């Protein structure tokens, strides 16, 4: 099963095995990662699952759609070029070893 490492604000690292097809918001909240909220359940309506993605992996993840791009303008911590809403990152073998950093705050 591919592995993702969540690095929380403050440096706490948690590696999580994620089933292919599951999104990182589901995987992170299920693993008890406190820096992800995911209030809307993956509907692109809350912008509380913001992560910074390891730039090496960005080309391997499908680009954000217009709704996600809009939502990334409204995050509680300002977005950067490598920002994504992790409910939109669907796990696959190509993403094995991915590292994501969590922002200082989601709300």
């Amino acid at each position, binding site marked *: 099963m591919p592995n993702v490492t969540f690095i929380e604000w403050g440096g706490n690292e948690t590696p999580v095995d994620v089933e292919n097809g599951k999104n990182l918001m589901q995987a992170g909240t299920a693993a008890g990662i406190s820096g992800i909220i995911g*209030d809307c359940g993956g509907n692109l309506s*809350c912008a509380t699952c913001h992560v910074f993605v390891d730039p090496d992996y960005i080309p391997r993840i499908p680009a954000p759609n217009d709704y996600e791009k809009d939502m990334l303008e*409204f995050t*509680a911590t300002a977005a950067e070029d490598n920002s994504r809403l992790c409910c939109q990152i669907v796990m696959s073998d190509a993403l094995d070893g991915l590292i994501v950093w969590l922002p200082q705050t989601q709300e």
Partner: protein
Amino acid sequence: MLPNAELSIAAPPAIHIDPYADDFLADPDPGRCIIRDSAPITYLPKYGVYATGRMTVVREIFKDYERFSSSAGIGLADRRDPSSHAHRRPSPINEVDPPVHTKIRAGVQKLLSPMMIRSWRGRYDAFAEKLVDQLIIRGGVIDAVPEIAEEMTYTLMPETLGLDIPRAFLPGLGEMNSFSLGPATPRQQANYEQVKDAIKFYNEAAERENVRPGTLADKIYQEEDAGTFEPGVGAGLIRVFLRASSENQYSMISALIRRLAENPDQWDKVKADPGKLKNAIEEVIRLDTPLEVDFRLVVSDTEFNGQALQGNRKIGLFIAAANRDPHYWDKPNEYDVDREVLGNHVGFGGGAHVCVGQMMARLQGESLLKALVARVDRIEPAGRPERRVVSATNSLKSLPVRLIGR
């Protein structure tokens, strides 16, 4: 093609359920079961509309806005008919499709971003804390609908929006929103009569020169000036917010208190672990979904999951029924704060039109539940809850409880 493929494409079967009749409004569950169990999609001859209460079907239709449009309105009436606008003008956000919808939605979403929600949180928390403190000190039986749910909603919603509407006029407006989603009935007529004077206040209060500076309504007008919304859209958005969110907010708050009172084991779990607080609210939105049914228009003749649908006919997505679909949920009629409900229920609708105000709804629920958990030991039922008899919305009129302080 299989020789009998033609035969398997059947028209949705007619069922004789009236989701706006008094018996359904008093106890919707038996009717929901018939809608859900009879076929994936059924036909309600009385209104000439299709209906579905199955989770998988509801989800698919929400996503497919090209075949299932919102342009004819989210209620029973066909909003393309101008005579339906007399009491409620078309919503500039709920009753349009992408791409027009996409731009308006993005503008509204920005106004309800985590940053905005955070700016309101302190006020909401303080309001809830003071309200719960006062009720505990007073003691005895309280009616949680007017004294908690309506008190919170009718104070905080107009305040956040920045609208000056006399409190006495607010309750009828929430109910008007529900009635406007259903058919012309004597109850609807009585409500419209009751709100006649309120509507004038409500329309005037939403006008640009009357909204308070620095509030949500003011920001909506600023976005209109900046070109995010077409001229005239701002006032419509403000009215939608006040009307729709009022009705859904007090419905959700009332249901939350009810379920925690009736399920002391679940209340104890939330008290012991405030990490369950968000899920406790989400589970109420599933079990007691405020909006019963959300309509779409079948754009043209189409085949859907082996059923033949006629174009230009509306289809009612019974989201409250889907949220209790036994093929999808284990023990669907039970309140379980540990259920994996987030992202799985359709209480906020789905697809492009998923409720834009959902973060405001959660804010109010969270502020109240945090205040209750910090101050209340037990919530005890003190009489039978009474349903509000309105079209299309599940809501309580009365909920007698006792709050026993910690």
